């Protein structure tokens, strides 16, 4: 087998990488905000807010229970039937965000619920309101606990975002397809592309590991390697 590699592929792929980063970064950040809100509703909504608990749960089950690909296609090809036309970028960003929010909601919920119940009691006992207790006692602990599953989600999303090439986005995968087709070197281009993904993921894994260690507090969370 005669393998060929050309340096000129790299700038194109790097542009694709930038778009992959943009889509993943934005959807992870927006997904974190939405996911945290969903998690808080799933944990704390009761009384008059109970319907919101139901809505949040339905949301989470729907977006975790259907394929990301179907969600993207639905937004891009399905919505125009309702008169809503989204650009490929917007459809992609929306699909990724809505999907990761559902997963992140579950990670946040798990983290919030693993904060011991006595913490809320003690916070209320000194006169903090429920919101203050969340802000100063529960969330600082939950956010530390959520780092490992959240890094996992980030890794998944970096790779999962590759499906946006199917609606014509020139992300890393989209660029790879274009170059590969043009040059009749699909296999080689895909190998290089895979290395790009791998490098990106290793970088983020190390970075989040660093954050986890920097914010570590004795007695909270899983002990690191010693």
């Amino acid at each position, binding site marked *: 087998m005669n393998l060929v590699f050309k340096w000129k592929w790299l700038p194109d792929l790097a542009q694709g990488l930038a778009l992959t980063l943009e889509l993943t970064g934005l959807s992870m950040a927006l997904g974190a905000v939405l996911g945290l809100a969903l998690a808080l509703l799933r944990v704390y909504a009761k009384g008059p807010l109970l319907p919101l608990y139901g809505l949040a749960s339905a949301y989470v089950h729907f977006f975790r229970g259907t394929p990301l690909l179907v969600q993207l296609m639905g937004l891009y090809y399905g919505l125009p039937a309702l008169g809503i036309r989204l650009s490929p970028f917007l459809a992609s960003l929306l699909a990724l965000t809505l999907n990761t929010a559902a997963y992140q909601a579950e990670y946040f919920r798990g983290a919030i619920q693993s904060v011991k119940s006595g913490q809320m*009691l003690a916070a209320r006992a*000194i006169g903090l309101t429920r919101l203050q207790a969340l802000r100063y006692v529960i969330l600082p602990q939950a956010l530390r606990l959520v780092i490992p599953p959240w890094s996992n989600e980030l890794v998944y999303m970096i790779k999962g975002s590759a499906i946006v090439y199917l609606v014509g986005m020139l992300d890393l995968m989209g660029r790879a397809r274009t170059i590969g087709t043009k040059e009749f070197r699909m296999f080689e281009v895909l190998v290089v592309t895979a290395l790009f993904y791998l490098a990106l993921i290793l970088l983020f894994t190390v970075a989040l590991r660093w954050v986890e260690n920097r914010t570590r*507090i004795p007695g909270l969370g899983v002990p690191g390697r010693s």
Partner: protein
Amino acid sequence: MLLRVEDLHKRYGREEVLRGISFSLEKGETKVIIGPSGTGKSTLLRCINRLTEPDRGRIFLEDVEITSPKADINKIRAQIGFVFQDFNLFTHLTALDNVRLGLMRVKGLPKKQATERALRELARVGLADKAKAYPAELSGGQQQRVSIARALAMDPKLILFDEPTSALDPELIGEVLSVMVDLAKSGMTMLVVTHEMGFARSVADEIIFMEKGVIVEQGPPEQLFKHPKHPRTAEFLRRITELYGGEG
């Protein structure tokens, strides 16, 4: 009168945990609640600052009705210290920050004043040198002392202690009790649920014996220990002194 509890009732499902509890506490008094486990002692304490909502009955802190639906419960809780059996220090905060949190976020003290006050309270429980330690780095006895400092910092009118030494190794009980003895002597108003009969006997102005959700008997320690009026009191005291020892 600092605290007045009137005909308090609380039910969990079919079980009535509190069946009409009434008593009161004068300023500076220490009262100790004793009784078999599962008789509603902890529930009673938690009803007093409404960490648990009572079903019926009224509670007054001085002339403010705690149980009134219109009561500002956060403001009231800030005036009632609560010391938990398992400490419940905020895991992610140092000893100093544990004590400082309420000062800054509830009382609105600026950081500098809050820090000074918190350090003073830590010194009072003998832990000035542990200000920067996280709860996990402290022994159980030290954690409980920090939690007492956290309660003290708020300048409470009353401190509720819910079996403060029950989760401690025996050799650590003494350091917590001695802090509590000092507090009682300094004039703090305290309501203490405990099995430490030595503490009850030497510090309490009055002992309340509770069983099955009612107060069976109450009176000064000497009277209860030497001449209990009720046979159930006598039997409980005999059993508990065998277990924990009565002198001390």
